[in-house]
């Protein structure tokens, strides 16, 4: 029961959990980016974002099944499969997110904040239940096709998959950073987030910019969905609800609206969750509760998050 009390501290175990946390955190960070970008630009908690992520997992599962992938691949077959699944996942989630914005949020953009949130909950319900009708309410096994080898450093085991997930996530984040800071469209996005009125006066097409934000946010969630299925080796129609809440917590922890914050928050939450699973008595059962507890504590004590700025209310 009480692992911490019963055994002396195991450093290897500790670092193993940190490593697990980093991998998980990379996935959380990718999903958190979508929450934070959308919130940054239209001040909406995209409640359906987790389900957009989930749709990447179920669509790519179908592709993998259609291709009869059921064994470990190597060489070109592996690279080709990964590329294909990433493209499918990114297109699914990116496209879905853009569609959702167009149908469910854009008509309500001038409504009070809680109204699009209710509409987002409706969308989330629709996405989950269509997925359930399609894939049943069962947890479905995801084929293992990525080499299961690992590097061992002392007692620490790092699988190739962990490395792949980390490298992919970091590459996407660097790409996002370059995009938002170096390109014209990225600047338009930041300008709109700062002050949509002024941005529009400077000739920024607001609708297009918002669509682009949803596209990128969805795409990152799509990529996360692909690697998450590989990591968890399973697919479940409610995975987006659970993971989405954790990723939202990460975004809030980092400071919602802040891109670096979402990345930081994602990794932190991943590590905290991994450590909690190990060191909190009965940790696995409570692990979801841990994320909620963190969320509630941040919102109460530091709603602006770690990297966010306190903004005065307009009076």
């Amino acid at each position, binding site marked *: 029961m009480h692992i911490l009390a019963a055994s002396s501290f195991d450093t290897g175990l500790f670092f193993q959990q940190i490593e697990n946390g980093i991998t998980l955190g990379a996935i959380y960070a990718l999903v958190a980016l979508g929450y934070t970008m959308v919130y940054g630009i239209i001040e909406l908690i995209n409640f359906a974002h987790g389900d957009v992520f989930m749709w990447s997992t179920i669509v790519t599962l179908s592709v993998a099944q259609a291709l009869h992938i059921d064994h470990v691949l190597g060489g070109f077959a592996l690279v080709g499969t990964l590329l294909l699944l990433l493209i499918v996942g990114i297109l699914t989630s990116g496209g879905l997110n853009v569609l959702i914005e167009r149908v469910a949020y854009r008509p309500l953009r*001038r409504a*009070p904040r*809680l109204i699009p949130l209710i509409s987002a*909950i409706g969308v989330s*319900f629709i996405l989950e239940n269509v997925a359930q009708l399609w894939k049943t309410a069962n947890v479905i096994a995801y084929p293992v096709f990525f080499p299961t080898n690992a590097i061992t450093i002392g007692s620490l085991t790092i699988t190739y998959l962990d490395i792949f997930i980390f490298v992919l996530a970091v590459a996407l984040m660097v790409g996002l950073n370059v995009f938002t800071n170096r390109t014209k469209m990225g600047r338009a996005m930041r300008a709109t987030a700062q002050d949509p*009125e002024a941005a529009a006066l400077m000739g920024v097409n607001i609708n297009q910019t918002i669509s682009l934000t949803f596209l990128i946010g969805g795409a990152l969630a799509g990529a996360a969905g692909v690697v998450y299925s590989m990591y968890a080796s399973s697919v479940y129609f409610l995975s987006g609800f659970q993971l989405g809440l954790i990723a939202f917590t990460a975004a809030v922890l980092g400071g919602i609206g802040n891109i670096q914050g979402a990345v930081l928050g994602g990794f932190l939450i991943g590590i905290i969750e991994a450590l909690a699973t190990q060191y909190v008595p009965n940790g696995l059962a409570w692990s979801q509760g841990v994320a909620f507890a963190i969320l509630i504590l941040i919102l109460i004590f530091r709603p602006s998050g770690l990297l966010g700025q306190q903004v005065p209310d307009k009076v």
Partner: protein
Amino acid sequence: MSAPSRSKGGLPLFQPIRDGWNALVARLEKTQLLGRSLLWYITGWRLGIIALILAVIYPQMFDDSYVLAGCIIAIYVLLALGLNIVVGYAGLLDLGYVAFFVIGNYTYAALSRGYLVNSAKQVVPVPVLSFWWLLPLGALFAGIAGVLLGAPTLRLRGDYLAIVTLGFGELSRIFVLNVPYFGAANGLNAPPAPTVHTPLGDVDFGNFIDHTNFYYLTLALVVIVTLLVNLLRNSSLGRAWVAMREDETAAAAAGVNLVRTKLLAFATGAAIGGIGGILNVALVPSITPDQFTFNISISILVMIVLGGIGSIPGVIVGAIVLKLFDQILLNNLNDYVHGSPLVSNPGAPLHFLAGNDFNQEKFLLYGLVLLGMILLRPQGIIPDRRRQREIKEASSVESASAVGVLAIEESGDTLAGLGSAPDVTEYVGPGSDAQGREG
């Protein structure tokens, strides 16, 4: 710039229905009975009386499966009335209302059977309280929980509050799932509601063959809670709630203590949720944590949005419609479809529906109702008068607004006006400035 304005919002598709409805109303208005129009007899409080009479004779007209469904409907009417105080009156979006339902359920289950089982599978004696004591006690516990949860969180902005309440709702389920005393995943059994001895004879509320008495009990509670909610609405507290919902800052500056006023909404709503929970266990005999998911919170929210946020008759109708659908219609639909020769015969064109349980599509439909109502008729089936004004006003202000952030782009439907106060002012602000020739 703006899309061509539709008459009153809504789809042209439904125009014939609207026309038919208007014609019916006009005819009812013209027809006189004892010096009043027929319309008079079926509007306002008189409609409430008619509904109550129908509700009273309902168990006499249908068999017990329908009476049981009636009990469940009544419990959800209570829940919808409770959540409506929080969402409709105070403008706080509570996505974790199920937490208070859980408290009611487990209060009754834990304190009605005399024992609990601890993690070592030992029986621990627990005092037994009667159903009639637990009914107010469940309300009290849930109300206290509402205050405890609300006190630290009600300062949060509306959308953050929504997510935090969702967290509490999920935590309540994770909590009962992980505490051995509450039976973990197996949940708890509880005795049914008791028999009451009266001079006129025994009244058995816990009869599982004939639910009529229990039905009348829940109906009585619905009537009491409806009257109570109506009292709250038309009081200084009700005014403060509306003021706070419309403009938090102005309400505070006018002397409304925001935290206290929000807490009262939270606590009252929670207490009603607790009563619903007590009734639920007394009706269903056993409960498990997996019954108390996010789906419950959302179902109740759907009832409110469907009926009309803030409107008492609206949310009652919303709850009845949705639960009628859920408890009666879906099962009948299943029986009907599965019995149809087009489905049942192998090789029939619709045979693929043979194994389909329409209950599975239920929540998909809830999602569609939620999205559809918010986009097409945010005021609900029976709108609250004030809410309807808020919606109209917000859209008219928007059309008048020249400086609003998003006036730059083409507008689709312009529907607004629900939700918490600071939001309203933020969005309405620039518009009213334009109207008000502000310098």
